């Protein structure tokens, strides 16, 4: 046999076994390609979702109030772990936990028990380096509030990327981002190889609130201090910028992220409601500023069965005097002249019985359902703040209207919202007169303890009996004490409301709440460096506190 033929035969002999291999390759690569490709992809490639952190919440100056941080959760797969005690020993130092505690967590009924939550990146990396089979790490985000409980009633709470209350709930959509999708493949050792990413994911920008962290702190500190000295059951302090309607502070006591009493709780406000009657009387010209109204020497029978009393009996008082002395008889006589329709219109005009529209969850509208069926008694009692339920924010919005020259503004909680004028409540001359009346209240009336030497303050005190929830009757021993006002009276920078529920030592608004108002206002003045006003604008700034009798703080 020639050599060439022999070589060919040997070659064929060696190549023959390759033929079925080639056929099998063709079968796998061509005929079954689609199926096998899908299987391989499932085995090696992974789709990961990068965490898109929930947006930060900042105050008006950019200081962070709420922030999301990436944290890792460590879990175990019981089917893959042979020696749990050994794993517990290994993890103890890294997790800063006792092996016993880790073992206890491992004993849970689940197949994948969580051994540790909220691990830092360094801890997670150290655990990965241990290369213990059966342990897994999952990335998640956790919400932190760097200022502790500061403004927690406004911020609310978020968990697992979902807002549960407060700003976290009402601005949930704005705060939530969209995670980015990543495609990777894993090599034999389990290492990831980046393939591509989908760019539709985004992390939202921080949400700036109108709250000022420092002002909020001042409000909360003053409220906490009042809680200590007066043993109050609960309380609220609100501070608003009259020119824009932006809320600068919204403090509550006790503080909880699950409830915001400033907008969710209603109460009978007492004499701070006298402003509604006074505005309606001036606007409809049923009372002149000089007119003297007979105040019945402190006792006035509206009907044979119902008699109204004043704490401080008076004979004749002007409308300003009625507000200064907070005379229930005087204001009742005025409201009877104003009449039910005009009073009701003014009440609505000030924004009572309607939600203010602030973008926070669970706002109450207030209550006065049976108004139309009631007679003179309900009208007169409403004129001094009984029989009507309002929220603290509604009261502040009403006084803010006077501070803003008669324009009712929408209270705002985020700088992203544009200031909105709702309506003009009263004429400029009426508002000017009212401002003067409110200044008189502080200068020579029940609000004397709200005075600040060198600054003009306008405001009104309010005291009301609490309703006993069990008996549904007015309590004889528990009161709501409030003071609401603004300063400087001529060019207001801040409207401030202080409501204290159930103060023990003093219970009149002028005794309990006005000093808190004054304390907050003094610190605001110091904080912002507001220079004193010309003496000509302050009529009686250094009025002694002692000349006002204790009974006239109502």
């Amino acid at each position, binding site marked *: 046999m020639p050599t060439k033929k022999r070589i060919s035969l040997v070659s064929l002999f060696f190549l023959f076994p390759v033929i079925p291999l080639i056929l099998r390759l063709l079968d796998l690569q061509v005929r079954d390609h689609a199926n096998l490709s899908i299987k391989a992809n499932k085995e090696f490639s992974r789709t990961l979702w990068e965490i898109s952190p929930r947006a930060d919440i900042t105050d008006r100056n950019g200081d962070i109030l709420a922030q999301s941080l990436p944290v890792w959760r460590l879990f175990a797969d019981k089917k893959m772990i042979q020696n749990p005690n050994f794993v517990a020993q290994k993890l103890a130092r890294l997790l800063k936990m006792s092996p016993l505690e880790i073992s206890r967590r491992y004993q849970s009924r689940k197949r994948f028990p969580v051994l540790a939550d909220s691990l830092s*990146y360094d801890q997670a990396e150290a655990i990965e380096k241990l290369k213990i089979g059966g342990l897994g790490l999952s990335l998640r985000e956790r919400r932190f509030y760097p*200022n*502790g409980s*500061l403004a927690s009633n406004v911020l609310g709470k978020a968990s697992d990327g979902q807002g549960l209350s407060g700003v976290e709930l009402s601005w949930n959509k704005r705060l939530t981002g969209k995670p980015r999708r990543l495609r990777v493949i894993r090599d034999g050792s389990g290492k990831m190889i980046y393939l591509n990413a989908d760019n539709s994911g985004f992390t939202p920008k921080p949400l700036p609130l109108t709250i000022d962290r420092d002002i909020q702190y001042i409000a909360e500190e003053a409220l906490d201090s009042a809680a200590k000295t007066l043993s109050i059951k609960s309380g609220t302090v609100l501070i608003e910028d009259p020119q824009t309607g932006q809320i600068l502070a919204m403090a509550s006591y006790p503080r909880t992220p699950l409830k915001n009493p400033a907008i969710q709780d209603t109460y009978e406000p007492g004499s701070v409601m006298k402003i509604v009657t006074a505005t309606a009387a001036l606007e409809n010209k049923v009372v002149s500023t000089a007119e003297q109204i007979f105040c019945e020497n402190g006792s006035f029978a509206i009907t044979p069965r119902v008699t109204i009393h004043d704490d401080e009996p008076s004979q004749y008082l002007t409308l300003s005097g009625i507000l200064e002395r907070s005379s229930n008889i005087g204001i009742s006589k005025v409201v009877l002249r104003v009449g039910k329709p005009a009073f009701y219109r003014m009440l609505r005009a000030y924004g009572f019985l309607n939600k203010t529209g602030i973008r926070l969850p669970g706002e109450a509208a207030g209550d006065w359902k049976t108004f139309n069926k009631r007679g003179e008694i309900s009208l007169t009692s409403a004129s001094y703040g009984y029989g009507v339920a309002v929220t603290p924010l509604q009261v502040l919005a009403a006084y803010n209207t006077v501070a803003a020259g008669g324009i009712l503004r929408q209270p705002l909680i985020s700088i992203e919202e544009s200031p909105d004028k709702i309506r003009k409540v009263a004429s400029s001359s009426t508002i000017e007169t009212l401002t003067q009346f409110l200044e008189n209240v502080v200068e020579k009336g029940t609000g004397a303890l709200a005075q600040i030497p060198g600054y003009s303050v306008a405001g009104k005190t309010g005291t009301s009996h609490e309703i006993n929830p069990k008996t549904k009757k007015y309590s004889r021993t528990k009161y709501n004490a409030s003071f609401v006002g603004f300063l400087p009276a001529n060019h207001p920078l801040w409207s401030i409301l202080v409501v204290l529920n159930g103060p023990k030592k003093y219970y009149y608004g002028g005794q309990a709440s006005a000093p808190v108002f004054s304390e907050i206002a003094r610190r605001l003045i110091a904080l912002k460096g507001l220079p004193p006003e010309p003496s000509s604008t302050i009529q009686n700034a250094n009025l002694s506190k002692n000349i006002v009798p204790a009974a006239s703080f109502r």
Partner: protein
Amino acid sequence: MNKKFISGKLLFLAALGILLIAWERIEATELGYRVEEGRKSLEALESQASILEKNLETASSPETLSRLAGEKLQMIPAPLKSIKFMDSPPPQEVASFQNFPSHFWRKLKFWRRST
């Protein structure tokens, strides 16, 4: 000879092509590793940055500052009456004739004398 040369060239080009494809795949994989590593280190840095930011915010919160100022420096909030506004003196002083510049007084006295 010519045919052999052409087929040799083609073989060489094919081999070169295969090498190029293989090199490209190896490079892509290498790059994939690097991107993944970069992504992980970015994640780590971002995580550390946000922890530091949180610590900074906590340390500069009004509550912490107030506590530290009180405990370590014995500081208390300044009462309003102890604050002096240097660039804008109290207006009652401005309104007083005593504070007018001396040359104004001289002019005024001269005017009085002359009338």
